[in-house]
């Protein structure tokens, strides 16, 4: 009602209408740009997908030698090779992103609760800028820390000669590993989550918390049962954004995860964690100089298309997860 009243009283003139149209056109332009991105990337990716079909996502042979064959065939016109089976890359991405987001989610929830409800004022005044700083540190700096500190640590102290010998001839264990990637990526995405989670927790109506406290429920339980539950939409939003950030992280992971496309095998026991891997986004970075050969180009765009569609799916998943929560009157 108030809204309508306000709209009716607005003075409108021709110049005003023009301004609205201009801004609307600008918005349409941004929307078209995004649609164009989907169309262009998928169009470029199509040859790779149509040659491989669903086996693009499967596992057969060595991805690196397949990529090499694709690259070599670029010079022979009419005999392009497209065979590509990307499972090791997809598995590597899933492990790194899944591991980092899971660990970061649990830690961030605790930290956000701590910041909003439990931290003494002095500590809170320190923690808030700290979270913001960690969220804005460039990924290449995290990568540098990984290369200079974490990778040597893992390579020299965690990996024994025996474990190196056990996988000799298949891969070399030198510290560039899944573990390093997950650890650094956790530190990278956790601040993003903490920032959004604590915004959500702050927006929980104070009265709800106090009502629960008034019933004699202790503060810890109150915060988890009322605060966190009410802030679920923000928690979903933060998780989605952090997962998207992790999924798209290319440079940092290409610095600490190793250069071979190996699918870490959980059956290897604890060596699993120190096996190298190369996620999808890092693969694009690794072969970006070969973009001028057509088959290679289509393959790289296919990888980009998989990333883009996963990000879109993630966005949609977040939206769908938020729908049933809307009933509880929480702020989105």
């Amino acid at each position: 009602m108030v809204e309508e009243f306000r709209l009716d009283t607005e003075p409108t003139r021709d110049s005003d209408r023009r301004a609205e149209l201009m801004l609307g056109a600008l918005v349409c332009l941004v929307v078209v740009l995004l649609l164009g991105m989907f169309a262009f990337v998928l169009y470029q990716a199509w040859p790779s997908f149509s040659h491989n079909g669903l086996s693009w996502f499967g596992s057969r042979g060595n991805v690196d030698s397949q990529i090499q064959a694709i690259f070599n065939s670029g010079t022979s016109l009419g005999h392009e090779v497209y065979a590509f089976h990307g499972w090791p890359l997809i598995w590597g991405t899933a492990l790194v992103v899944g591991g980092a987001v899971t660990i970061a989610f649990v830690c961030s929830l605790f930290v956000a609760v701590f910041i909003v409800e439990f931290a003494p004022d002095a500590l809170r005044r320190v923690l808030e800028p700290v979270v913001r700083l960690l969220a804005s540190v460039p990924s290449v700096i995290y990568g540098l820390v990984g290369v200079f500190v974490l990778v040597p640590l893992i390579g020299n102290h965690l990996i024994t000669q025996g474990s190196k010998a056990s996988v000799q001839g298949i891969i070399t264990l030198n510290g560039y590993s899944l573990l390093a990637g997950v650890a650094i990526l956790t530190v990278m995405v956790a601040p993003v989550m903490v920032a959004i989670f604590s915004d959500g927790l702050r927006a929980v109506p104070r009265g709800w918390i106090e009502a629960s406290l008034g019933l004699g429920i202790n503060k810890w339980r109150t915060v988890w049962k009322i605060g966190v539950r009410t802030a679920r939409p923000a928690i979903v939003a933060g998780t989605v954004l952090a997962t998207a950030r992790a999924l798209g992280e290319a440079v940092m992971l290409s610095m600490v995860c190793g250069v071979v496309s190996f699918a870490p095998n959980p059956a290897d026991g604890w060596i699993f964690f120190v096996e190298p891997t190369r996620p999808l986004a890092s693969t694009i970075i690794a072969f970006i100089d070969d973009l001028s050969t057509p088959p290679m180009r289509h393959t790289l765009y296919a990888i980009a298309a998989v990333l883009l569609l996963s990000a879109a799916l993630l966005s949609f998943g977040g939206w769908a997860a938020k729908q049933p929560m809307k009933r509880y009157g929480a702020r989105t």
Partner: protein
Amino acid sequence: MSLLELPVSQPGPRAPRAAQSPPWRLIDRVGLAVAWLLGLLFCALAGALVLYFLVQGIKYVRPSLFLTNPSPGFTATATGGFLDPMLGTMLVSAIAMAIALPIGIGVAVWLSEYGRPAALARVAESTIEMIAGTPSIVLALFGILLFESPALGFLSRSSEGVVFGRSFFAAGAMLSLVALPLVVSNVREGLEAIPDHVREASYALGKTKFATTRRVLLPAARPSVLTGAMLGAGRVIGDTAIIVVLLGATLTFDRSGSVPLLSTLRGTGSTLTYYVFYNAPTGEGNQPTKAYAAAFVLLMIVLALNVGVDIATRRSRRLRWSS
């Protein structure tokens, strides 16, 4: 506190409330301890990061690094400094923000002040959300497609009719998409925090809606605009993937054409992030001391931007609307 305020309505022989609340269960206390621990861990992590780079920076940053250009070589003395990458960082973020700010403010104003038809508003909202979630490496590959197309090819470097789609223009334009969601969400938040009576007061004086937005609302939301701009710039400065793809291959400015500024913008170059990537042990340059020095400078820029955001937020908090 709220317990004390409860009216005691039942007088009579009841057990006196000795403790205000029963002691917490063990699991709750463990949980609180974990929360404390993780909170302190966060502080320690940030402290360690800054301290680590401070030490490395003091060890390796030399004034000469800021004044010389990178040059090929195998020793630390032969490879020069990072003058061009640093200028490249400034140039690329200037281009990106010059594109992202007007578009971002425009979109935010439309979303918060107009937003009709409602369907378009919903689509626009999810578009911004999608752009925020799009990996920057995908944006970079899209940028190659855009800027090697004949229509936009004149903006980037070409040789013998072949357009590579790599230039400061291309990188800046794609990086503006990285900054756009941050600008939009911050400006929008700032605009929506302004109560309606401010708008109505302006209408009552005969101002049109557009004039109100430009003369009243945007100036009032300036701290939010500033916050959005600085957060966006932080992301732009820190991005590496787009730089590697759309700007890579040359560490120094490689101009294209003869017009002074335009040739630089159309040419290729590098930024500090790429310089760090290049000089890390995994990169082609492998000069760790240079990587440390550049990373230190980069971290200092980010820190400065953070302090700026802090000041801007504090200013916006000071400006409270009575509603």
